């Protein structure tokens, strides 16, 4: 059997079980709703505060910022549903010395540790993100053409892949740094920096959020696609960064596994 289809099959079994398990816990659903509502509210309040004093922020209007917020919440939901639970359980396993079993399975180890868990109720964030985006789309409808939509779609996929790769790279670091909770906070912090279009940041910070930890481009470029400001350079950068992030994080993971087993020490 093809190795990729095998990995996907294993992932589907895990996701199915994960969803079945989570659905039993209705309280988590309520919690997730509160959490999503609170986060959405603070996001909106931040934007409202800014537009209480000005009509544009670095050239971005209010509905345009809602488009950014919507993408931020949507990708955040994807991250919390599919990526985070896996990364956290991996870090836990490294800390508790329980990783051995995962590495002994005859499947691609990266695919395996990335697809074992599902944060089912976080789909609420995905839905909230879509709703916010929908509202922004309605406000911006006049300037969005079909090409923009296609580019937006590609941008979102790239964004999700970048998010995954960044997390994967940070998670791999757990092989060396056992205490990784702080790093998780940092990535979350960097991701929150993407709540605003990175174009308003000074160049050094834009550069860092594009080339070093590319969480900024992951959100801003799709937003540019639907706010009539996407340049070929930006789109090209996003695609390039995606390719580099995916391949580099995979190479890093493989190096990490070899190092864990003492092969490269």
């Amino acid at each position, binding site marked *: *059997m093809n*190795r990729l289809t*095998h990995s996907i*099959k*294993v992932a589907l*079994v*895990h996701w199915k*079980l994960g969803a079945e*398990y989570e659905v039993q816990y209705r309280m988590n659903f309520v919690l997730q709703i509160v959490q999503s509502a609170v986060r959405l509210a603070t996001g909106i309040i931040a934007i409202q505060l800014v537009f209480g004093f000005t009509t544009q922020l670095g050239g971005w209007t209010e509905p345009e910022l809602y488009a950014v917020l919507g993408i931020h919440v949507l990708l955040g939901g994807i991250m919390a549903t599919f990526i985070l639970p896996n990364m956290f359980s991996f870090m836990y396993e490294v800390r508790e010395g*329980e990783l*051995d*079993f995962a*590495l*002994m*399975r*005859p*499947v691609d180890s990266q695919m*395996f540790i990335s697809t074992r868990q599902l944060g089912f109720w976080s789909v609420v964030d995905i839905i909230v993100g879509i709703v916010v985006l929908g509202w922004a789309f309605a406000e911006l409808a006049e300037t969005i053409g079909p090409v923009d939509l296609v580019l937006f779609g590609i941008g979102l996929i790239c964004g999700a892949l970048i998010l995954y790769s960044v997390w994967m790279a940070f998670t791999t670091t757990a092989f060396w740094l056992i205490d990784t909770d702080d790093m998780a906070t940092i990535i979350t912090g960097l991701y929150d920096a993407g709540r605003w279009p990175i174009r308003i940041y000074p160049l050094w910070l834009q550069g860092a959020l594009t080339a070093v930890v590319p969480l900024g481009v992951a959100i801003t470029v799709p937003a540019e696609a639907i706010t009539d400001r996407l340049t070929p350079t930006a789109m090209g950068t996003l695609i390039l960064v995606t390719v580099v992030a995916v391949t580099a994080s995979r190479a890093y993971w493989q190096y990490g596994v*070899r190092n864990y*087993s*003492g*092969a490269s*020490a």
Partner: protein
Amino acid sequence: MPSVVVDGLTKTFKVPVREEGFLNSLKSLVHRTYRNVEAVRDISFTLDPGEVVGFLGPNGAGKTTTLKMLSGLLYPTAGHASVIGFDPSERRPEFLTRVALIMGNRNSLMWDLPVADSLDVRKAIYSIGDADYRARRERFTEMLDVGDLLTKPVRNLSLGERMKVEILAALLPAPPVLFLDEPTLGLDLSMQKRIRRFVAAYAEDEGATILLTSHYMADVTALCERVIVIHRGSKLFDGDLSELSDRFGALKTITVSVTGSLPDLSGYATVTERTADKAVLSLPRGEVAGVASRLLANLDVLDLSIEDPPIEDVIERTFASGDEEPSVTATPE
């Protein structure tokens, strides 16, 4: 062709040295020293298909490190291993499908989900066919008597129950090579027995090669004819369990009881226990025949029995003979 070939396997770990005290911990902010610890030193052996071999040694002897190298979890510093024709460190899926590592007190199942769910996941991971899966699952469930456990979440199981389902899950792909690291650790006697019986049956049915470590000698005597003993990373002994006592000169015991009162027997051998009419003597294997016949000739013997020493004593003596400091070299970095 042997199923496991180990040739000169060596593993050296680099561990940071941390000195006590507040100042030293501040110092370690900028500068750390490391030292090399040789966990496994130049070990060689081969296992034939279907062999069940005990792998013995005190804590820290390097047993788990060796098993991890044979499972592809650790890369050897030197030497080479071949398991069913594969180099474990390449971690090929074909290799991983055919080898299982079970560690006592460790959990590889999904903690919050019923056992059966974990088994379904294993089926997908190991690409086990439907028919094989059903047949093995049914057979193992019955042999281990875990039918009523499969619907319970793993976290609700007792230690022994968890070990049983752990073994069940690990053996679902019917691996021809099995590494068992303290599979009965912390379990009560009846649970130990059941697991032992199951492992013996599995070895018999599947012709599996098994390397087993255990602190409980009963596991080893029940399952293994051959043992490999390592101590401080080096191999001390490899051969029949019965030879172990010969090799390391463990003492045999003679229990003798007489009619009337017992004279002083210290002329015959070391007396380890005595009552008014009964004594236990401890003596080297070679002297047993002579002493026994002299006792029979000189005393009014009611009963006399000659016994092999308890295996624990043998092991203890074996380790004592290999006692030396491990080689440690400091390398500041």
